[in-house]
Structures are given as C-alpha cells and as structure tokens.
C-alpha cells in the first residue's frame, strides 16, 4: 500500500510548480493553466485523503472543485477575449495601465 504521505508530497510538489508557473510566466493563458494545475494538485490530495480516510466528502468536494474550475476557466477566457479585443496584449507586463 502506498502511504498517504507520498500523495501529500506529490500534490504539494505539483501545487508549488503551479504557483511558480503562475508567478513566472508572462503569458496569461499559461497562468490560467498553472491555476488549473494548482486545483488539480488539490484534487489529488483530496481524493487521496478521501481514500485513506474512507470518507466520501473529499471526492464530493473534488467534484465541486472541477465545476468551479470549469466556470473559472470560462470566465477567465471571456475576460481575456474582451481584453484581447481592446488591446492585442496577452502578456501581463503589457497591461500596466494603472499603477502607482
């Protein structure tokens, strides 16, 4: 049996990779995908917990997380499209209209 700690370790690593990806990449799409990555890492840990804790709550929660992720992606891309219409910019350092 694979001990729970490994799963936690795995999800932690992927989570942090997601965070780093979010911080480093200039392209907004990749940032969105990094967020998806973070959410998936959480899903992994939740499923692992629900498996080892023999409790379904985790999986139900994963189910809801996936729906929210979908909604989020939809809205994120909608905003991106609206932004793209006004200014052909998809990199974060091009959208610094407001500062100070």
């Amino acid at each position, binding site marked *: 049996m694979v001990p729970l700690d490994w799963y936690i370790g795995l999800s932690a690593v992927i989570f942090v990779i997601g*965070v780093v990806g*979010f*911080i*480093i990449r*200039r392209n907004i799409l990749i940032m969105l995908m990094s967020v998806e990555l973070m959410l998936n890492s959480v899903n992994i840990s939740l499923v692992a917990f629900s498996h080892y804790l023999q409790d379904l709550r985790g999986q139900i929660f994963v189910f809801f997380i996936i729906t929210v992720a979908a909604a989020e992606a939809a809205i994120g891309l909608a905003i991106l499209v609206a932004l793209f219409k006004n200014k052909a910019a998809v990199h*974060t*350092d091009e*959208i*610094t*209209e*407001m*500062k*100070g």
Partner: protein
Amino acid sequence: MDKYLLIPLLPLIAFTINIIFGKGIIKERAHWIAILAVLGSFAIAVSTLIEVLNGKTINYDVYSWIVSGSFKVTVGFLIDQLTAIMLIVVTSVSLLVHIYSVGYMHGDKGYYRFFAYLSLFTFSMLMLVMGNNLLQLYFGWEAVGLCSYFLIGFWYEKKSASDAGKKAFIVNRFGDFGFGIGVIMIFLTLGALHYTDIFAKVGTLQGQTINILGYNIDLITLIALLLFCGAVGKSAQIPLHVWLPDAMEGPTPVSALIHAATMVTAGVFMVARFNPIFSLSETAMNVVALTGAITSLFAATIALVQNDIKRIVAYSTVSQLGYMFLACGVGAYGAGVFHLYTHAYFKALLFLGAGSVMHAMAGELDIQKMGGLKKHMPVTYWTFLIASLSIAGIPGLAGFFSKDEILWLAYNHGTIGKIVWLMGTAVAALTAFYSFRIIFMAFHGKFRGTHEQEHHLHESPKAMTIPLIILAIGAISAGWVGIPAALGGSNAIAHFFEPVLGHPHVTAAHEEEFMVMSISIVAAIGGIFVSWIFYSLKPEIPKTLAAKFKGIYTTLWNKYYVDELYGFIIVRPTKWIASNILVAVTDGKIIEGIVNGVPQAIRNFGERLRKLQTGHLQHYAVSMAIGLFVILTLVLIAAGR
C-alpha cells in the same frame, strides 16, 4: 464721599473729561478743567496738612481691590506727616506747572491731550503718595511711569521724543521688576501688604536668611535692596539713570513737574516710607548712601561740560536726587524729605526759567549761542538767579538749610558718613559752579545768537512769569521751616517728621556743626567764583582746559558712554537673538523642521512605496507569495522551536 478720596479723584475726572471730549468740544479750553481740578486737590491738601499738623493721621480703606485666597489687597489711604508734605509739594508744583503750560503750550495742536496727561499724572502721583499698601504704591508707581511715557513722547512725530518715552518706560520697568519681586517677598514673608501690618511684623524677620541659588542672604537686606532697586529705576540713580537726560525731549513744563519735583522723588518717598525696613539692615543703608553719593558726583561732573541748558538742569536733578538718597542712606530720612521739599521748588523754577528762555529764543537750547539775556528778560533772570543761589547753597535760601542739614547728619554718621560727607561737599562746589555757568553764559555777556533771534527776544507772557515769581518766593521761604537749632531756628520740619521718619542721634557738638556749615558755604562761594572767572572774566580758559584734558572732556561729554554700553550689552544682542537665532533657527529650523519634516518624510516614503505598485500583475502575485512565505517562516519557526 469723604474729602480725602476727592484729592486724587478730581484730577482723574478732569483727565476723563479732557480725553473724551477734548478733541471735539473742549479743544482750547482744556486748561480750565485741569487747573480747577488741581486747585481743588491743592485746597484739600492744605486742609489735610492743617489736620495732620494738629496730630490727626488718616488710615482707611476705600474698597477691596484684589482678593485671592489669603492675598487681600485694598485701595486705601494713609495720610500722615510724610504724605501731607508730599501732597502739598505735588499739588502746588502741579498747579503752578498747569498755569505755566497755558502760556507755554499755547497753539500746540495736542493742547487738550497735554492737559489730560498732566491731570492723569497728578492723579497717579497722588495715588502713589496717599496709598496705604504696597500694591497701591506699585499701582501709582507704574501709572506715573506711564504718564511720563506719554508726556516725554508728547511730540510723537519726532523719533527722538518717542524713543526717549519708550526708553523711559522700559528702564523704569527694569526698576519695577525688582520692586515687584520685593513686594512679593514682603507678602510671602510677612503675609500682608498694608504698611501698618508690615512695620508691625518686620521685627520678626530680624536675622532670618534665605537661600537663593545656594547662597544664604539676609532676608531684610534682600527685601530692602529689592525695594531700593525700584527707587533706583524711578529716581534715575546710577545704573538706571540713562532715561532722565533723554526725557528732556518732552515739553519743558513736563520736565519741571515730573523730572524735577514729583515723579523722580517718588523713589526717595518710598525709601523714606519704608525707613523701618531700611534701618534694620546696615548693609542696605550703606548701599543707599553710597549709590546716592556716587550718582550725585557722577551727574555733577557730566553737568560741567554739557551745553544744552535743559540737559544741565536734568543732570543737576540726578545729582540732587543722589543727595536725597545720601541723606536716607545715613538715616537722615527727615533731612532727605526736607531737601526733596525745597528742591522741588527751586528745581521746578530752574526748569520753568529754562523753558521761558527757550520760549524767547524760539527753541534754541545751546547756552553757547545765548548771552546777555539779562536786559531782555529781567523777571526770568532774577528768578533764575534766586534758584541758582538756592541750589548752590547760599545761606538764607532754602537750598542751604536742607543741604546743610544732610551734610551735617552725614558727618555724624560714622566713617561711611564721613566719606559721603566729603563727596557731598565736593558736589556742592560743582553744583554751584555749573549753576552759575548757565547764569554767566546765558544771561551775562553779549548775545551770541543769530540776528533775527536777537530782535525776537522778549519777556515771557504773564501766565509764565507769575508761576516763576511764586516759585522764587517758595525757593527762598521753603528753607525757613527747617532752620537748624545751631542757627537758633526751631527746626520745625525735623520735629514734624519725627513720628514717621525718626531722627538720627547727633553726637558732635555745635562747633563741629558750624565747621561743617562753613565748609559748605566756602564750597558754594568758591564754586560761584571759579565759574565767574571761567565764563565772564576770561572766557578762553574753559577752551584751553578742554583742549588740554581732551580725554576727560570727551568722556564727560559723552556721559561716560553709558548709553552706548547699555545698547551694546542689552538692546542690540536681544534684537539680534530675536531675529537671527529665535526666528531663524529654533523656530524656523528646528521646530518647523520637525513639524514639516515628518510629513515630508512620510510623503517621500510613500512615493517610493508607490513605485512598488508597478501595475504589473506578476509583481502582485510575487508580493503575495513573499507575504505568504514570510508569515510561514515566522510562524513555523516560532511553533517549531
């Protein structure tokens, strides 16, 4: 409304009427109201003198002025022998000056204002003299200083006049500073300010000392000296005399009234009034005596070389005041006040005489440009001559009796007395010299002024000459009241003052008294003789002497550079500190620096922080991550330990 209250009240009413309605309604007729008021006061003063003569002293409170916890002060009157004499002096001289001013100030646009100030001055002087407690004395003290400020600076367009007024007030304030502290010390140690209570309890203070900044000083000496400090300021003694000569900027009647007869003598009056305190402290008495003597010598030497007629008379006043303090210093308070009484008349006469000369010479004051006025102004000449004879101390006239009394009592007062007596005699000689210098240069010899001045010369109008004559009578007869026993007189004035001012015990025999008297007569005549040689026989002698002793002449001419000294030590540095250090540095740099500096620093810090807000999305995420990281490390390490 008892009559004593009327004495100060009448001039006050005259003042209010003149000052309010003066400009509009009264204008030229202001002098009537003022003169009537002073006349009323004079009449009541005479009646009170009679009452006091037959032994009645008045001491009652009008109303309670300040009540704060244990500190109770009232406005009240104490009229005893000393006050009665002072009342007579003040009201009489004031009356004569009022009459004189009608002529002198004729046509001046501030006519009503002048008479209003004169009435205010009389009111303040009367309050000072009649007060029965120290605070009312202080009230009169400052009020008189105020009136002298108004009157000296009467022609306020002239910068020198308004400067002189301001200087007089501020120098007086220095004196009043010491005097105020003296008043407070008395209240703190004796618990009351009324004369009767003070004199009753002052004995208990004998020998007590007080610790100031580590040194224990004898309490009574300290109080006496503080009070004396006020007197020095008011009566223009050595350290604080600088304002009197400048006070000549004011109209001459003002000088006659204030700077000869009344205000300056307030110092002597106060020392005399507090003789119980002064006599308890040996050192205080010596300080008073020495200051008086030194001042009189100092002023007399300066008067030798001055050319402005009013300046000479002013310095002679300072010197005569020195005399009075000398008297008080040796315990002869009665003689001091007697000299004050006689001095008031002949000094006022000298001033008014100088005023009428100035009137005739169209404002010319320099005696070198006068000469031979005898034939043009006989009345002024003769009255001026009588006054000069009296001040010089020629027997028979008032000056001789009072001055001789002082010298004699000084002589009796041990070693200090001897020193002071010698200086007094020297001053007598000098006084005679410079008084007659004026006579010879101004009235004798030939006219040295401009041509049109010459034909303009005329005798002063009636309003001016009558007071001169009355004063001349006073200058002669005033002395007869105090003819010493040695010359067969009853010395009535000394006995009159006995209950209030006491009488110093006299040890030496009559012969010595004659010896002292003869020495002072010789000094007087000698002074006149030398002055006659210098200024009428061989006029060139003074010039050669002045050339030979160049150094001494210029120091005397510049009044020992005292004014410049004060300017250098006090006035200029304070102004410099005020504008350069305080306004510029402490307020400008330090406090403002902090007050403006802190918000400015915050704003600069804000500007830098603002740069962190780059608008770049990633940077926000980075800052969030860093925030998270910092919190994580802090908490985990804290928990981990």
